[in-house]
Structures are given as structure tokens and as C-alpha cells.
């Protein structure tokens, strides 16, 4: 007997086969005329500068941590939601208490500033100071 998950498996196998066949056909008919220029990394026409794996904002990591906590709570919430109608007022109270604790955690994170996405405040270079530092007499009009 083919179970429902068996059908899903058949579907997944056929979908994967479709992708593999499409990629294979493309490999057969497409041209391959590689040159050195084609394989360089795209950086708006300039030669690539430094490593491509640049440093990024630590905020992304904090977001991932918060996500992990709340996603686990979704997993805990689903069984309650499915059996809710069997338990009447008892189920309601249990759910409210759970959501209250969840909301408290949320409020704590909000209060501690973990949900803020801090905007960088860059200081635009002051042209007048730079010119003063360089101590060169460049005949330009300095805006104030």
C-alpha cells in the first residue's frame, strides 16, 4: 500500500529528476567559451578589492538567536492549538498563561534593546579640515 508520505516521496523524486534533466540538457546545448575576464568577480567593472567574505553587522547574529527562541515556542504552541477545542476553559487558561510568559520574554527583549536595529551614524568627512591638515595650497573654494 502506498501511504500518503509515499506519494510525497514520489513527488519529490520526480521534482528532483526534472531539475537534474533540465540542468543536463542545458549542459549539452550551451556554449562554453571561457576567458579569464569572464571568471572574475563582479564589482561594477573594477578589479575585485580584498576578500569577498567581508565583515558584517553583528545584529544579524542576534536576530538569529531571537528567532531560535521564538521558533521553538511555535513548536510548543501547535499541539496546544490542535487539541484546544477538547479542553474548554482549562485549555484557554493554559494557553493564556503560555502566551503571557511568551509576551514577557518579548517585552524583556524589547526593553533590553535587542529588537532595535541600530542605524550607523557616519560622520561625513569635513572637506575644510582635510584641506587644512594636508597643508597644501589648493585653490578651491571651501564650502562652509
Amino acid at each position, binding site marked *: 500500500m502506498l501511504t500518503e508520505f509515499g506519494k510525497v516521496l514520489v513527488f519529490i523524486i520526480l521534482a528532483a529528476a526534472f531539475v537534474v534533466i*533540465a540542468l543536463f*540538457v*542545458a549542459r549539452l546545448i550551451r556554449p562554453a567559451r571561457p576567458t579569464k575576464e569572464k571568471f572574475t*568577480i*563582479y564589482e561594477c567593472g573594477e578589479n575585485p578589492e580584498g576578500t569577498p567574505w567581508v565583515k558584517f553587522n553583528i545584529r*544579524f547574529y542576534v536576530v*538569529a538567536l531571537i528567532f531560535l527562541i521564538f521558533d521553538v515556542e511555535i513548536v510548543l504552541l501547535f499541539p496546544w492549538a*490542535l487539541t484546544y477545542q477538547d479542553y474548554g476553559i482549562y485549555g484557554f487558561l493554559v494557553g493564556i498563561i503560555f502566551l503571557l510568559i511568551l509576551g514577557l520574554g518579548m517585552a524583556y527583549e524589547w526593553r533590553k534593546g535587542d529588537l532595535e536595529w541600530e542605524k550607523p551614524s557616519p560622520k561625513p568627512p569635513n572637506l575644510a579640515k582635510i584641506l587644512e591638515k594636508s597643508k597644501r595650497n589648493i585653490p578651491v573654494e571651501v564650502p562652509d
Partner: protein
Amino acid sequence: MNIWEIIIITVIKIGAILTIMLLTVSYLVYFERRISAWIQSRLGPNRVGWEGILQPFADVFKLLLKEDISPVAANKFIHGLAPFIAVFVAFSTYAVIPIGPDVTIFGYSIQLVVADVNIGVLYVLALTSLGVYGLTFAGWSSGSKYSLLGGIRSSAQMISYEVSMGFSVGGVLLMAGSLSPIAIVEAQYGWMWNAIVQPIGFITFTVAAFAETNRLPFDLPEAEPELVGGYHTEYSSMKFAGFFLAEYANMIIAAGMIVTLYLGGWQVPYIDKLGLGEIVTALMQVGSFFVKMGAILFFFIWVRWSIPRFRYDQLMNLGWKVMFPLSLINIVWVAALIMIFNL
């Protein structure tokens, strides 16, 4: 029914679903271009075939004939794996979305869904979460700064909105008491559509769906003015086509899920009271599913060409400080409704 009949029926259903899906994806691209042109007072593609109706096929052949390039700094294996994951995830989700009620054809009772999995909603949520890997791998493995930033942005955005999406689904589960998409559709009999019973959940789910599919106003991962192409900057040929296909396939899944969970799926309110024949009823119900889905897809396109992009901090604030509390309120609202009216 013996096992061979079941296997043959399943394979026919899978073939039909895959064909419908591929056609809708390619024509969704065509309609997006035509509608955007219409919104912006342009003409759009109208040269290939009647009114440009063959444009999708021309595009596919063009992409098939393009040279495939993976740049020097790229990790070759993961670079090739990423579009595969994206397409695979987008395709396999279709297995559980029901497009119509049970019908009887040639004496066989057939469900208009590939697999009636009793945890269908979990299956969809799990697979769409896997989709994040495709984008992150693509961004990391390309060896380009634009790709890396695009990949990181998209993973952070998708996981942020996945939380409010999960909690909104919780409200639907409260109403239906089941994870099976068919049971959820049947629980919305008449006008008991979840969009009407729990409008807050409908809004949070729709917004989360926009963010999950990386559509404007949430298309930060590939914001052209800042990041060129985002995670698929370094992709070309069929690998690029894979991401493109996956993006539009995800849009169709999102629309299908919105219809199934909130707009009554294939239900037409009180159609069984009209006393039409079984075949006519079934046809109208399947038709209503596609009409609802088409309306949602048009809404997706309409929003894309009407609303400007968010800034990243606005996106994160909206996700965590507005959508997430709203989806919690929605759960309490639904639970209270069930308690008061004994739905």
C-alpha cells in the same frame, strides 16, 4: 483499488500538477511584465506570438543557450547546489496543496491533491524554512561582496518573518483543530473563512508571505540600487533560471497557502445548497480556487509596482515590533472567540 492503480493515479496527478505549475510560473512572469507595463503606461513584451503570449518560451530558450559561469573565487560545489535546493524546495511544496474536493472520474474516487498528508501545514512550513539554505548558500559561495550581503540580509529577513508566519498559522489551527490542509479547508464551510473570522491573522500572514517570497516592498536581498542582484549576482544560464523559477514558484505557493488557510480554499459559500450536479459543483469549486489564487497573485504584482522598498531597519522593526505582537494578539482573539461562541 490495487497498488498499481494508486501508483498510476498518483503519477498522473503529479504530472498534471507539475505541468500546471510550470505553465503558471512562466505565465506569471509574462503577466507580471505585462501588468507592470500597464501600471507604468508602457507596452511590455508584445512581439513573440499574439500579444507576446510566447514570450516565456523565448526566455527559457535564451537561458538554455547561455554560457554557464562560476567565478574563480566561488566554492564550485555549493555554488551549483544552491539553485538546486531553491528549485527543489519550491517544487516539492506543491504536493500538499488541495485544489478541489473529492471527485469521481471513471468510477475512481480521486482527491484533487497529490498527497493528503495529515501534517500538511507543518510540511509546507518545514520546506519553506529549508528554502533559506538555498539563498544563504548562494550568497556565501559566490565569492562576491554583493552576494554575501544579499544572502545574509535575506536569511535574517526570512527568519524574522517566519516567526510571525508561524504564530498566524496557530490561529488557523485553533479553528480547524487539524494540520491537514483538506481539514482546514473543510472547517471554513460557508462564510466561516478565516480571513473573516481572524482578519489580523490574515494580514500578518499575508505580510509575512510577501517577506518570505522576497517581493517588494521586502525585496532587500536583491535591492538593485545597493546590491546589484543580491544573492544571484554571480549566477548565469540555467542556474539563474533556477532561482528565477523558484522565486515565482514560491509566490504561487504563498498565494495557494493564503487561499487554503484564509480564503476557504476551494470552497464556494453554500454551493451545495443550490442543487447543481456533482461534476458542475466540483468544476466550480476548482475554478474558484484558481480565481482566488489569481486574485492574490495580481495583488502581489500590484503591490510590487505601487509601493517603494523599505529600509532595512524599518523592515526589522515591522517584523519584530508590529507583526509579531499582532500575531500573538490574533491567537488570543481566536481562542477567545472559540471560547465565547463555541465555534
